[in-house]
């Protein structure tokens, strides 16, 4: 097991008496060379989870381990340097995640530069190699990020994270800002890297079909807590939690015949505010099969098979 968290929690204070429960007690396990998908609506805390895991955000409580070694509670710059060859991150916005004042050479070579063990020429060679590897032209090394398209920029971001050959990468919605045709390029690139480098990934996205396609395991997050987790295909084709079921029903498909036959029954209401969440199931307000105890009692993770867990009172 490469990554393990137990009750990882991240709260943001919001002034007097207000707390934003962004991530509320998430426990996951990711095996080596496995892609774990994390799906959820915006505001469900999935990005916050990724950033807390890599130490960009300081966790409020809970534990996290990397290869059985406990990750520090608060990451200092030295900790980040120490773990930089282990954990990296790919960001959602291909525009704000590359420094507009730096050339592509400096952007991609940054990791090697910070580690300070390489000469300028070595960095240059490595960057050229990685540019080619992510499908870009090595001659464009001296250009600036704004001259590239979104998909090209995202690949530059991937090269920056990969050049120091980390073991584990958090992909924070790496494709949601990209066009369909380009999404596939990035997904295939990530898949290639997984195979060739033995990468382990946490793949955060809101596109169910894509997460199902990319990942081995899938976790569905709702308002800071996990609703359901298990092998991707099982969760996708046989959803158990009422939220997962509704989410998959609402997921449109690129096939007019299926769409015409689809009963229109969109999920009611909208995701509520994660501020000052009390006891009870977080999904109770929108749940079609809500019971009385859902409003008072927080459901625990219930194992419904060796590999699957559901947090719902229906399975008690």
């Amino acid at each position: 097991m490469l990554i393990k968290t137990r009750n990882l929690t991240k709260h943001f204070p919001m002034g007097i008496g207000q707390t934003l429960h962004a991530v509320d007690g998430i426990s996951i396990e990711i095996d080596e060379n496995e892609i774990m998908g994390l799906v959820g609506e915006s505001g469900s805390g999935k990005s916050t989870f990724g950033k807390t895991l890599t130490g960009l955000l300081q966790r409020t409580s809970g534990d996290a381990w990397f290869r059985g070694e406990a990750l520090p509670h608060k990451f200092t710059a030295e900790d980040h340097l120490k773990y930089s060859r282990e954990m990296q991150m790919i960001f959602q916005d291909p525009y704000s995640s590359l420094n507009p004042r730096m050339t592509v050479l400096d952007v991609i070579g940054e990791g090697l530069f910070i580690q300070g063990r390489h000469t300028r020429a070595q960095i240059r060679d490595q960057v050229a190699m990685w540019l080619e590897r992510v499908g870009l032209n090595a001659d464009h090394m001296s250009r600036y990020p704004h001259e590239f398209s979104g998909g090209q920029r995202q690949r530059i971001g991937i090269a920056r994270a990969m050049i120091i050959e980390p073991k584990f990468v958090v992909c924070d919605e790496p494709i949601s800002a990209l066009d369909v045709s380009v999404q596939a390029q990035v997904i295939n690139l990530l898949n290639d890297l997984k195979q060739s480098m033995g990468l382990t990934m946490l793949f955060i996205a809101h596109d169910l079909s894509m997460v199902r396609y990319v990942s081995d395991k899938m976790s569905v997050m709702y308002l800071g807590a996990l609703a359901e987790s298990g092998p991707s295909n099982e969760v996708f084709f046989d959803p158990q939690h009422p939220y997962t079921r509704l989410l998959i029903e609402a997921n449109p498909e690129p096939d007019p015949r299926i769409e015409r036959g689809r009963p229109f029954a969109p999920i009611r209401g909208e995701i509520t505010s994660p501020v000052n969440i009390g006891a009870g199931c977080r999904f109770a307000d929108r749940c079609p099969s809500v019971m009385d105890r859902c409003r008072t009692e927080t459901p625990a993770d219930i194992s419904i098979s060796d590999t699957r867990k559901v947090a719902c009172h229906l399975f008690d």
Partner: protein
Amino acid sequence: MAEATTDPYLPTATDFSPAVTEESIEQLARPSLSYWQDAWRRLKKNTRAIISLYIIVGLALFTLAGPLVWQVDPALQDLNQISQPPALPRDAVVVETYARWPGVVIEDFPIEPDEYVDSVPAPENVRVVEAPSTQRVRLVWDPVTGAGGYNVYRNQRAPHSINDLGLPLGGTMAGNEVSFEDRLSLEQRVYYYSVVPTDGFDEFDTWTTIEVTPLLSITRADAVARGLIAEDSEVSDGDKIKLEFHPLGTDYLGRDMLARLMEGARISLFIGICAPFLYVLFGILYGGFAGYFGGQFDQLLMRFADFVVALPFLLFMILFKIAFGIGPGESGIIPMLIALVLLGWPATARLVRGQVLQIREQGYIQAARLLGGKHHYLVIRHIIPNTMGVILVTLTFSVPTAIFTEAFLSFIGMGVAPPTPSWGSMCNEGVKTMLSHPHELVFPAMFISITVLAFNLLGDGLTEALDSRMRSRE
């Protein structure tokens, strides 16, 4: 069958053989531009900003290189040319050194009238003796029977009544003293001299006016002393020589306006550039720290900045002057600089803090943190380069504000003190002669306005050129 609606081209069979397309994948068609190159490109398109830039460069040359070209002492008084409007170099007649003039007294005429009369005729034959020059004008007239003295008036236009004779120059206290010498700041222009007989105490209501145009004059000794002619030159009295050239005229003390404007520009631009530079620098450090470390520290620092904003500038300026022991009428450049710096930084600090807070959340900072970048690395490599645009704009907008503050303080007499010129103090001096010699106010005021406008337009241009929102991918 598929049918083409428009088919101007009839392909051949070879056209349909497969093609290799690899070469053109992932090519970038447009020329590469860095952030600053791109900003410069957009600034160049902004005509107003470029003109302003030229003006500012011109101004810098004017201030720094100007005194090398125009080597005139700004404190030197040219008493021959006081409050002269801008003009080409003038001719002056060389006259002999001033010698006392005893005046004309008619011996056989009574000093006092034998008997007091109600009215006397107007003086006759009022005339100028010896050529009138700006050195002196000498008037002589025929005695008037019944007069016990004469008053002499000078006006710049023809008088129309006895109440309109102009400036009372003086007069004589005896009926037989029939001459007057005028040496009161004469200029080369038309004067109307009026002579009014008196009974020794009160004026009669008759007068005579003559028109006199004194010639611009200089003594030989003066001309030699001021370097207008060589000591051994053959110029003699009555010859004409060129006087000093004052392209922008002179002020009320005969000092060269151009030289004073150059000297004043030094003071104004020194304050205008030093003060913003210092307080923007401080603001960057302060705001940068607040924004970068955030949290309670940020709150504390920013509340202190709010406190500083609430302090009244003028009061502080006065307090500093007192604290430095600078009395009224003494130069207060240093206290002004200190007051500007101490009270000017919060605006920049707030702006930089906002920027840093925003940049701190950008993906590239987070990526650099994950790569193990230390604080100083993040600041130097990522944060500072990305705030440079805003800082440059702030600096550009701060300069005119500081110039204006300096000018205002000097104008109300709180800044530089005479004889040091600054544009503000020159305005202050010029405003006194605004109606008669407008150029003394217009030139410094124009310099202030143009400088302030140029910096503001440049700032606008820079804002536009550096604004990342305008950097759409087009």
